[in-house]
């Protein structure tokens, strides 16, 4: 319940939540700063799935 002392489950949720967003943020900035095009989209690899077909816009 809210307001009592911090329970183990509360600590679990807090650390998992904070760890998840911190990891996601770190990953994004790592990619931007050090590996911006490590995983280019399929269209640049010419793989040819329907999602990669050039579309006249």
């Amino acid at each position, binding site marked *: 319940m809210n307001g009592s002392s911090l329970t183990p489950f509360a600590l679990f*949720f807090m650390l998992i939540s904070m760890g998840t967003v911190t990891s996601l943020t770190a990953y994004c900035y790592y990619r931007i700063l050090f590996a911006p095009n490590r995983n280019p989209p399929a269209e640049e690899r010419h793989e040819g799935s329907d999602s990669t077909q050039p579309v006249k816009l």
Partner: protein
Amino acid sequence: MSGSTRGRERWGTRIGLILAMAGNAVGLGNFLRFPVQAAQNGGGTFMIPYFISFLLLGVPLMWIEWTIGRYGGSRGHGTVPGMFDELGDRKKRWAKYLGVLGIVMPLIVFIYYTYVVSWMLGYSFFSLAGTYFGLEAFEQASQFLYTYQDVFDTSGHGGWVAVLFFVLTISFLGWVLSKGISGGIEKLALIGMPILFLFAFILMIRVLTLPPAVASPADGLSFIWNPEWSSLGNARVWLAAAGQMFFTLSLGIGTIHTYSSFLTEKDDITLTGLSTGATNEFAEIVLGGTIAIPAAVEGLPGPDFWGRITGFFWFFLLFIAGITSAVALSSPAIAFLQEEFRQTRRRAVRTVMTLALALGGLHVIFYHKQFLDVWDYWAGTFGLVLFATIEIVLFAYVFGIDRGWHEMHVGADLRVPGIYRPVMKWITPLFLFVLLGWWGVTEAVPTFLMADVADAAISYDPATVPYRWLSRAVLLGLVGLGLYLIKRAWAGKPAPDSSGA
């Protein structure tokens, strides 16, 4: 960040764009709304629907808005009417009128939000001056804020103080905005966002190491994080989590569209968009989840030097979070005047700031008459879901998910997982229709009928009813003005090229 976008302004650097977009998203809601929502909706277990909403609603909508914005910008449109016009069947030319929401809603929110942000500036000065110290009881602190908000109440510090800080805030915003995208908004983000994070880290450390006056830091954190498992079976909790996504990521309002319209056609939006979302989530969960409520539970610092500095850091942090969001909220209206009516940037900024000052004055005068609440509900809450529902239908079904998916990946540095294609086509629209229906039935209809006036438990003052109608009339007048301006702007445009090339 190079290339041509038909002579439109552009962002100077990628990090500047990310910080400006993050500044748009990180606002008062991250530090004030999120901890309250978490505490009221299950504590730690709130994070389960929160993360599911982030993945199924927040992230796909964010990518869609970036895509629509860049696509519209590459065709010379910095605002939603022109973007929707490009997405829709241009022979029928009806979609642009739906885009009125993307100009009027951010303008409406900008006007009242700037007034609220000006309170933060006022409180920053009060902190340094030690004005509010000694107000130990909640009632005393509430009364202090109440008299600050009431311009006719001269019992406290005089009604003119709120007006002064409002004018100062509007003037500062006008000055920043008149400098342009790269020279104004981007510079504000490059300076303001690091200061915001620095202040937030200092406060987080301070809160977690504060000698407890009332309770320990762990007791404070327990208010937000202790789980209530039964809440997972409550639909309201899931909808609260979904609603929080709109506020925290600034979705469904038109600001992301305008900001991303200043990208070039080949600039990445998938990795950059995800980065701004991640930055916002970091600010919300890590910083927002550890400052406000734990500090309130532990007890406020005293009027000594460090107490004043701590208070200043807190309110100035909120002020920075607020102004970086406010510049984004005013941008669609400014871009619309610039691009559709050929106004210079300075003139467009002057027009919008004058309107904000005039209509903001109504909020200053009628704040305690629920004038602001009306705007906040229809434009700042319900309107967001309505706008997002319209845009995802246009994107996934009128423009087409195949074209949209392709457009999203032009110049992309990150391949969006394939699962997001069906999510954008089916899951997110379904999520939005459920949210729209639920809020429509449970909140929008009773709010429209002013059911709270008759509800003794809420005890709203019936004397506010005429002011609330006045507030609605002004709101509708702004929508009408927006529709008229769109019609006038398009009247002089050449007929669309039917080839669509």
